[in-house]
């Protein structure tokens, strides 16, 4: 039997989905919120969908919605720009599910910001023994330079990308799990916006038939959030977006967001710190900068404090920041809260700071630094997903059920050599979604990254970026490893 667990009622195990044939079985019981779309989809000839897909690709190329892969060459052997594959079939989430998820996201991100503030000030949570002190202070992501620094609204992670998957619980019901918090420089929001634009262009009729919650006001919310992070003295703050430059993989997004907000896109070389204030070099001399939406990692921000050889940042930036003369979004040192070894403590943070039960689930996580967890992990390698604590982009991980014996043994050796570098989690049966691939419509695994904005309030646009693992059976959705994206609909039904 064929199962598309986002579209169909019964959520069976992953193997059942993968073993089935590749034709979409519209006679299966549909989930309510997919009913109308599935009906529409069944009427679309394959040739029409092919043509739409070609059209989308042509437009993305012309618009230059590309990302750069470091050191890679394109088909002509000349450039390094690639398209992120865009899938025509939207991922649909019913409004009532979203409302709950949104409440959970507000709760979680609020607690994470409280945690970062606490870590760099009174450290109540460490004193209470809820998060082990050495896990924080010996962590490479802990920034001593942030101790005692006060930031506007006590917000550190202004833009948070929370990775969420849907998977069956023991009872077989679908449930959302937070897989990872991204609190440093989460990217992908431009694809969320461009995917919606593309869908409206390709299939306008769908939007007259469905009440899809709009997302296009994201840049407005972002600008509002950034302006709220200005040093308090300034009522008309100048905001800039700081990019590593046009060869960065997310350059399109940096340029896009700056343009949509109507602010300057700057590089490190355009900024200068004088008398502990930040200035940009313009055709009319120096101009004060109040808020920097930086898309450059901590390590490269200020050669005076971090990597001395970095040319991407600005010398003296941290002086200006500590003096309270410039806002940096996200703040330095947020990595302490999205580190994979801190992740297991997030539910406890929510209870500690907010006195509330967590709304969103965490995935059970084994910290290999702890002997019991390490033993369990080593005994169950073929069932678990093992990740590097500081890994990103889907690299440096072992997906036990999909790995060869040799890969498992190699990983075992690496684990034993440096257990503290790893965590392990059960392999979740990530939900899949009908996806238009070369062979037709087939199930592919997806996740969801909503973008949560924290300024004076915590807010977000409905939905997020749905990433899809285009390779059959693959669980890795990262664009650097063959992942694609889909439009995400929050639907009133």
């Amino acid at each position: 039997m064929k199962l598309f667990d986002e579209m169909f009622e019964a959520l069976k195990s992953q193997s059942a989905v993968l073993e089935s044939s590749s034709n979409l079985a519209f006679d299966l019981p549909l989930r309510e919120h997919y009913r109308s779309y599935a009906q529409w989809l069944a009427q679309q000839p394959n040739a029409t969908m092919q043509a739409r897909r070609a059209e989308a690709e042509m437009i993305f190329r012309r618009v230059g919605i590309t990302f750069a892969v470091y050191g890679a060459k394109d088909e002509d052997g000349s450039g390094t720009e690639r398209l992120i594959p865009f899938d025509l079939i939207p991922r649909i989430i019913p409004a009532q599910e979203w409302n709950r998820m949104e409440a959970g996201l507000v709760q979680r991100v609020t607690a994470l910001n409280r945690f970062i503030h606490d870590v760099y000030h009174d450290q109540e949570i460490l004193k209470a023994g809820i998060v082990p002190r050495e896990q924080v202070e010996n962590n490479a992501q802990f920034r001593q330079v942030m101790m005692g620094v006060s930031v506007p609204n006590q917000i550190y992670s202004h833009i948070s990308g929370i990775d969420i998957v849907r998977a069956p619980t023991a009872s077989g019901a679908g449930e959302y799990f937070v897989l990872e918090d991204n609190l440093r420089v989460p990217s992908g929001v431009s694809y969320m916006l461009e995917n919606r634009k593309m869908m409206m262009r390709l299939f306008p009729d769908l939007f007259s038939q469905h009440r899809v919650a709009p997302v296009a006001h994201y840049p407005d919310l972002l600008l509002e959030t950034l302006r709220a992070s200005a040093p308090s003295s300034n009522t008309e703050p100048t905001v800039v977006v700081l990019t590593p430059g046009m060869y960065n993989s997310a350059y399109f997004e940096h340029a896009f967001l700056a343009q949509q907000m109507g602010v300057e896109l700057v590089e490190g070389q355009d900024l200068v710190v004088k008398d502990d204030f930040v200035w940009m070099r313009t055709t009319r001399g120096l101009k004060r900068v109040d808020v920097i939406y930086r898309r450059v990692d901590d390590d490269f921000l200020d050669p005076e404090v971090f990597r001395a050889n970095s040319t991407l940042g600005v010398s003296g930036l941290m002086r200006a920041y500590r003096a309270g003369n410039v806002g940096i979004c996200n703040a330095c040192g947020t990595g302490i809260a999205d580190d994979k070894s801190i992740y297991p403590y997030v539910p406890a943070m929510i209870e500690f700071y907010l006195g509330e039960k967590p709304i969103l689930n965490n995935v059970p996580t084994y910290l290999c630094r702890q002997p019991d967890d390490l033993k369990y992990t080593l005994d169950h390698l073929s069932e678990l997903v093992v990740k590097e604590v500081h890994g990103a982009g889907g690299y440096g991980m072992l997906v036990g059920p999909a790995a060869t014996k040799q890969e498992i043994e190699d990983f075992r050796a690496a684990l034993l050599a440096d257990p503290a570098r790893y965590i392990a989690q059960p392999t979740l049966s990530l939900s899949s979604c009908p996806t238009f691939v070369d062979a037709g419509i087939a199930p592919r695994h997806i996740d969801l990254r909503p973008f949560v904005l924290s300024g004076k309030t915590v807010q977000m646009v409905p939905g997020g970026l749905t990433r899809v693992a285009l390779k059959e059976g693959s669980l890795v959705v990262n664009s650097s490893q063959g992942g694609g994206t889909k439009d995400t609909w929050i639907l009133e039904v």
Partner: protein
Amino acid sequence: MLSRTADHLFWMSRYTERAENTARMLDVNYQTSLLPQSDAVALVGWQGLLSISELLPAYQSKHGDVVPEKVMEFMVKDESNPSSIVSCLRAARENARAVRGALTTEVWETQNQTWLELNRMLKAGEFEQDPAQFFEWVKVRSHQSRGVTVGTMLMDEALHFMRLGTFLERADNTARLVDVKYHAVESDFFGAATDKDQEYDFYHWSAILRSVSAFEIYRKVYRDVIKPERVAELLILRADMPRSLHACLNEVVENLSVVVAGTSSETMRWAGKLQAELQYARIDEIEAMGLHAFLTRFLDRVNDLGGRISRDFLMAEAA
């Protein structure tokens, strides 16, 4: 606006204009080569084309003798030649990409589309199949780029720096183009040794006119046979001829006057002076001075003006 942004915009326009002018020169030489003429005369044309772009040594070290097909390939497809059409359009697109947020969607997409289409055409061998058609395409894309810029950009500093780039480059290119005639006939500027040469002379001068789309304009303005001094006057001194040095300097002065802040009045003075000289010059005076000498001096001064604009606006000021 950011100095770096202004710099990218300025160079984006310069490179687009340069690609167009390269296409114009190649087109004229290509068209001329279809006329019955001696190999020697044809060779002088191709060689002149390389020398006005100061590329003769680079060409010779790579290809040796001047061969029309090789020159065309060198000036169109050779990525190691910074003045080739492919290099110019790549640089224009890279500059545009670096500041795509400062451009309207239409301007950026036009630049990007040009680049994508160029790659497709070169790969498909469309240049070799029909060079004239290819040169026409380069010109049309340049027209489109200028048109979409003027038609969609907010009339602020960004637009003015782009326009400055366009007209400084065009002034430079037109001056070089007129000078090429000097390269071709050397000391024999206004004279003609034989009747036959005079006939060729007509074709060369009319080719220059065509390369700046001015053949019909010449007839309309002068209602006369093609006379070298009138061609020179049209392309240097006529303010109503859109590719003349005078017209270019008028545009430069106009755009510069909008962006100057107090500190750069010296640059404004230089631009104004150069413009005034063109405004009040007479072609017989230029003749007396020698056309080549005049153009060489003009090129130096346009170059200097570009340098001043860079220093005043486009370079990151030391803190």
